[in-house]
């Protein structure tokens, strides 16, 4: 059954105690550290949790046992870095259906230090193993930017426009003591950084880090019983397209974005003008452009000017990626959890670079290389 807008709330939210380079914690401990912090934020213990979601095969079992949780509802949806947006959506439906009352969603990834990290072997029999891997891709930096030149040609977007994305997000990161990179950069500096995979240079690619985060959701009726101000879930959406970036329908637009984003906004019953804060998962510099356009914040081809003119920077009309984003804040491998955390902080009013008066925040995620998408709309007030 569907949940009603505002009927479920985030009552606990936290990241790992440390973030960035954390070689003294294994991947499962990063999950646990974030979960313990979120439970402390909500004043709960493991025995209070009766629903659990985390990414991937066999993970709910591992995390449940490690934390001492006996869930009666689990979700192991793993569609890449936006899986947590889907977990929020599924958890809300489960709470509405009565399958669980208090759901914990965890993420932990030893992306940099690789302590007990999940291996990602390319299977030579998979479709990507047969029809992409033989041509020399080496991870997301070589695959995710493949559509960019086509997007640039179709929209008149320049290298300078794509550099500006990184510049603006560094302006936000400069206000965030937990951000991986806090030093301001210029368009010229971005375009002078080392070439990784043309057209993208080092400062247009996210770092790979260690860290985690956790959320706790419950019914809005119970939300007043928790210490932190509730952050209401107003809407959500999800979709998938393909595991192979070479096979996405349109190189200038993500089909998964175009399903997930509008689904979430429609459910929340909001217009673009109602959104006071936006997170768009930015593993690479082109993603905010696709997100702004596919979610309808900008017309096709206009995102480059929207960012260039300063709308998304501090003091702009639509503050975006205010933690510094995947490009400057952190990117463990699955950044969606951190986009959600920043949306929750902004709605609570506790973000390091707090935007004044955030009433509605949209967190939009991507998984794989335009493989999947999830969108969540949070609100300060219950409709």
């Amino acid at each position: 059954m569907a949940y009603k807008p505002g009927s479920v709330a985030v009552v606990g939210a936290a990241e790992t105690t440390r973030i960035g380079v954390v070689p003294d914690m294994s991947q499962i401990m990063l999950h646990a550290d974030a979960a313990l912090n979120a439970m402390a934020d909500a004043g709960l213990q493991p025995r209070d949790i009766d629903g659990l979601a985390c990414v991937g095969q066999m993970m709910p079992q591992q995390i449940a046992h490690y934390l001492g949780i006996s869930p009666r509802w689990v979700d192991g949806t793993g569609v890449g870095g936006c899986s947590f947006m889907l977990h929020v959506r599924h958890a809300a439906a489960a709470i509405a259906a009565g399958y669980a009352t208090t759901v914990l969603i965890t993420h932990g990834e030893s992306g940099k230090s690789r302590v007990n990290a999940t291996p990602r072997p390319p299977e030579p029999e998979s479709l990507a193993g047969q029809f992409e891997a033989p041509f020399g891709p080496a991870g997301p930096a070589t695959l995710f930017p493949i559509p960019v030149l086509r997007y640039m040609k179709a929209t008149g977007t320049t290298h300078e426009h794509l550099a500006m994305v990184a510049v603006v997000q560094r302006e936000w990161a400069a206000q965030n003591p937990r951000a991986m990179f806090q030093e301001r950069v210029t368009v010229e500096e971005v375009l002078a950084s080392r070439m990784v995979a043309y057209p993208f240079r080092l400062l247009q690619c996210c770092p790979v880090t260690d860290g985690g985060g956790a959320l706790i959701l419950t019914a809005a009726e119970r939300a007043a019983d928790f210490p932190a101000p509730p952050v209401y879930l107003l809407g959500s959406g999800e979709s998938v397209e393909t595991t192979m970036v070479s096979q996405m329908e349109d190189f200038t637009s993500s089909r998964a974005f175009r399903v997930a984003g509008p689904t979430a906004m429609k459910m929340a019953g909001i217009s673009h003008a109602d959104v006071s804060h936006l997170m768009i998962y930015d593993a690479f510099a082109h993603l905010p452009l696709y997100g702004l356009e596919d979610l309808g914040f900008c017309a096709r081809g206009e995102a480059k000017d929207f960012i260039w003119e300063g709308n998304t920077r501090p003091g702009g009309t639509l503050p975006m990626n205010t933690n510094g984003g995947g490009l400057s804040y952190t990117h463990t491998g699955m950044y969606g959890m951190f986009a959600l955390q920043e949306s929750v902080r902004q709605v609570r009013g506790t973000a390091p670079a707090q935007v004044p008066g955030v009433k509605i925040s949209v967190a939009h995620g991507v998984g794989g290389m335009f493989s999947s998408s999830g969108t969540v709309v949070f609100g300060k007030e219950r409709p």
Partner: protein
Amino acid sequence: MPFAGSKPKPTPETKHFWEGCRNGKLMLQRCPDTGRAYFPPRPFSPFTGSRAVSVFEACGRATLHSYVIHHREVPGFAPPYAIAVVELEEGPRMMTNIIECPQTPEALQLDMPLQVVFRPVDGEISLPLFRPLKEGA
């Protein structure tokens, strides 16, 4: 020199494609209901679900749809090298490499015409690569 890259392993559903490549033919499949060609191979139409699909040889011509030029070392590849997606004349797109062409943004122009060539990896696998289509070819 043995191929140091990632070698594809055919499945029952893709065997005909790789057999075609070994024999110098780029094999596609066509939906009986819409007439549209599709890729990667599967024994049913992704447009209508029909299993009555036909296999046919593509003409081998394509245009350059998009690419990146990778600047780091990867087994089997000498940087900088382009990882490209081409659009076949029949419609589907596929990932490939562009050979007999400088691996530079100046030489690699979007929408430039290309022709398939097959590079043997071993006795079983040949990879479909593309080179610029020569004038009058």
